[in-house]
């Protein structure tokens, strides 16, 4: 038995969420121009401020260049060959779940996210987004009793325009980067969360994003605001069917934490990653940023990234309020020809701010997995501290693990500590577990999940087990 090749064999598995839902879809014509931007806005019946926001972003986007510094090579994207709006054809307004097309409910059932009252998760409110639109949000009323707003961003634009106008684009400015500008111009739907002063959100909030159309870009927008003393835990999940073309996903997520508030944002990303030859898969180019505006506020990012052909994302924290806290916990698993360039930025501006970074990268197949992070201590961030730990695990000798931690300090009374290591699963470790009756697949999955434990511990309880399973699934294969 040749163990290394066995290890390599094990890391291949079929994608479970690759089915397509047959449903009539309303799509606008391909391409992007000012008229398309206006059309999207009018389809969504938006107020003027948002149309202006979009147009400004579009004009800015025209002046920007696609970033290439991350060394992620991919064929040129033809932005005129993408459909920027697709929605399942249904009656305009859905008052209750009964009015939602059963095919859609069935789709989410199949994805393990039941929406109807009997089967839905008891402690998690879900916003289900299908292509460009949100089709349902559960537990809205129950949350409203606590003053918590959880709805699609389109609905928020209509129901709470003043809140959206106050916060949208304040953390990720429209011209922040190429993909953020594009998103600001054409974003279709996404989730909006508002936790008022002093409220601990009584349940987990979750958005589930499903790309169904192959030629449609997905541009969701999420905005979460926690007022003074509020707290919330939010989780997003993502899947897409298997297409042999690449689909662009360029989301923007903005988090705003005021004094003494806390936001925990967890992601389980399992977009279709393409096949073994690297055909198809999602280009996941996402801008996620949180701003700890208030004193003693806290933003915590946890992510489990297993899907997408290419991932380019750096969930970041701007630690503006004194004594605010930023955290980033990440597991990124790449296989076959997947490429991931992910990490975080911790920008320390306020006094006594603290940040923690724990990143675990696992590269298998011929994939490439990079951690890229920035820890910056500004000249006023006296007494600030950062601790970073970046570990890589390599499975097989064709995979690449890269680490680029940028560190910049302009404050003598601050401390930054960074540690990184690289390991692999050794043949002897594998044999030891096997000699105790543990099968090869399970042994690998135990070691990978042990490697990731520090991060899984940070996920909401309901999803930690799911993430573990997801990794096991990714590593599952054809051992005879």
């Amino acid at each position: 038995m040749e163990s290394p090749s066995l290890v390599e064999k094990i890391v291949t598995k079929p994608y479970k969420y690759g089915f397509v839902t047959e449903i009539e879809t309303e799509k606008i014509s391909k391409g992007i121009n000012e008229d398309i931007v206006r059309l999207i806005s009018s389809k969504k019946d938006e107020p003027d401020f948002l149309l202006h926001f979009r147009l400004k972003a579009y004009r800015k986007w025209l002046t920007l260049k696609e970033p290439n510094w991350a060394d992620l090579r991919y064929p040129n994207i033809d932005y005129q060959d993408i459909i920027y709006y697709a929605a399942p054809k249904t009656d305009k307004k859905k008052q209750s779940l009964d009015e939602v097309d059963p095919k859609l409910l069935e789709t989410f059932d199949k994805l393990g996210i039941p929406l109807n009252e009997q089967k839905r998760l008891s402690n998690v409110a879900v916003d289900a987004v299908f292509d460009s639109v949100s089709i349902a949000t559960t537990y809205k009323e129950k949350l409203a009793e606590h003053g918590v707003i959880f709805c699609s961003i389109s609905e928020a634009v209509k129901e709470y325009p003043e809140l959206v106008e106050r916060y949208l684009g304040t953390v990720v400015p429209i011209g922040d980067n190429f993909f953020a500008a594009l998103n600001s111009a054409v974003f279709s739907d996404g989730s909006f969360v508002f936790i008022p002063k002093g409220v601990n959100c009584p349940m987990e909030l979750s958005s589930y994003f499903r790309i169904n159309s192959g030629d449609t870009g997905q541009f969701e927008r999420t905005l979460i605001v926690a007022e003074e003393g509020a707290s919330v835990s939010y989780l997003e999940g993502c899947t897409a069917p298997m297409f042999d073309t690449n689909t662009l996903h360029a989301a923007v997520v903005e988090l705003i934490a005021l004094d003494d508030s806390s936001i925990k944002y967890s992601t389980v990303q399992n977009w279709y990653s393409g096949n073994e030859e690297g055909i198809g898969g999602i280009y996941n180019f996402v801008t996620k940023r949180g701003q700890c505006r208030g004193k003693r506020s806290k933003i915590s990012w946890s992510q489990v990234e297993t899907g997408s052909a290419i991932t380019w994302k750096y969930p970041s924290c701007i630690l503006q309020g004194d004594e605010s806290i930023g955290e980033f916990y990440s597991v990124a698993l790449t296989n076959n020809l997947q490429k991931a360039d992910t990490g975080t930025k911790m920008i320390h501006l306020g006094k006594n701010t603290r940040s923690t970074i724990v990143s675990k990268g696992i590269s298998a197949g011929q994939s490439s997995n990079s951690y890229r992070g920035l820890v910056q201590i500004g000249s006023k961030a006296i007494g600030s501290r950062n601790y970073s730990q970046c570990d890589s695990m390599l499975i097989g000798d064709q995979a690449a693990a890269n680490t680029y931690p940028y560190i910049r300090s302009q404050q003598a009374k601050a401390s930054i500590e960074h540690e990184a290591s690289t390991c692999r699963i050794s043949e002897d470790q594998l044999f030891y577990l096997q000699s105790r009756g543990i099968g090869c697949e399970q042994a690998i999955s135990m070691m990978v999940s042990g490697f990731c434990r520090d991060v899984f511990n940070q996920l909401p309880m309901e999803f930690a087990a799911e993430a573990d399973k997801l990794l096991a699934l990714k590593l599952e294969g054809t051992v005879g």
Partner: protein
Amino acid sequence: MSFEYKNWINALPEPNGVLAKIQIEGRSLIQNLGIPSREIENWRLTDLKKLESLLTLPISKEQVQQRTPSSAELADQNDAGVRLTLSPNRNPLQLITLPYGIRELSKDEIKEIMKFKMSKIKSKVDWTKLLNHATANQIVGLNIKGTNVPSLELIMPANASEFSSTRIIINVEKGSKLELLEVVIGAKKSAQNHLIEINLEESAELKHGLIGLGVSEASLLAHLSVTQKPNSTYSLSSVQHGWSLGRCEQHIKQVEGQAQSIIRGLQISKGNEQLATHSLVSFDGPEGSLDQLQKSAAADQSHCIFNGAIKVPQKAQKTNAAQLSRNLLISENARIDTKPELEIIADDVRCTHGATVSQLQEDEIFYLQSRGITTDQATALLLKGYCQEILKGLPANAGRWGILKKLLEIVKR
């Protein structure tokens, strides 16, 4: 690219000497590529204004003034070592009889080594090297053979308000050993560009000290390129301070792996200096090892940069590489940038890296204070320890340059 810069290139003396062909190619390429810009990752943090101003200085046409070494520097010169003073327009080997074990490389040998090192320049990333190609018109080539070769000291002085460049090639033969100390000495408003190429044959050993002693408004752009054959040991200790713009690039390649590289670096900046060390260690074969420790300390409004890349491709199985970057911010307005870069494709490797940025540990100072030592004394003691960890790796004859004293003066406020 600014207008003056083009003029500066055009005003360079006619290409001549052994490097004429390289000069012509280098000048044409540098004209085409222009000066580094912020888009080039390893030049992103460089003070480009300082870089541009350096290209307005006239190139040294005359002999570089022999700097009179201080009595302290000469005091120890009884250790039977060889001291050469380099000058951009004169071959120092013409004036000296080399001792047994050291001989001048022939033109053909130099060509052979240059070919082996394949210093092809494609982009502005290698601009320091390119600048040297365009400007250097002398090459000093030395071959080392034997295990009992006298230590070698190369002094690279500068003329005030002038630009000068030198190029050195050293080949250490199979199984041979050398201690090499290079001392770059700045002059007021001078700019220096040095290209040092070293090849270690199988089982060769080189203990290399590289000291850059800057003075106010002087600049240094140095590129060190080392190739190592299997079982060779290369140990570098580099120290730089005092440069308005100091940039030391260290590229080490283990051509077939199985070699040992030890890198120690120390840079201490003050005033509005910017000091940078850019290292790149690549393992082109299995079982290589690297032990790297880089220290930077920044005082006043100065800026220290460290960029440490390690590349471990698939053929470099069983590589063992460790890198540590320790940084101290000594004043409120200083700035530190440090960036390790690890690129690994082999799975059976041990690679670790770490980085810290902090001030001197309060508890350490307190511990010393509690034993009756004043804060200032405690600080000095700790800084001394901080520096000495690097300085102790320098060749023995480095002692006479009194580096520690100079470094401690910088950090003593």
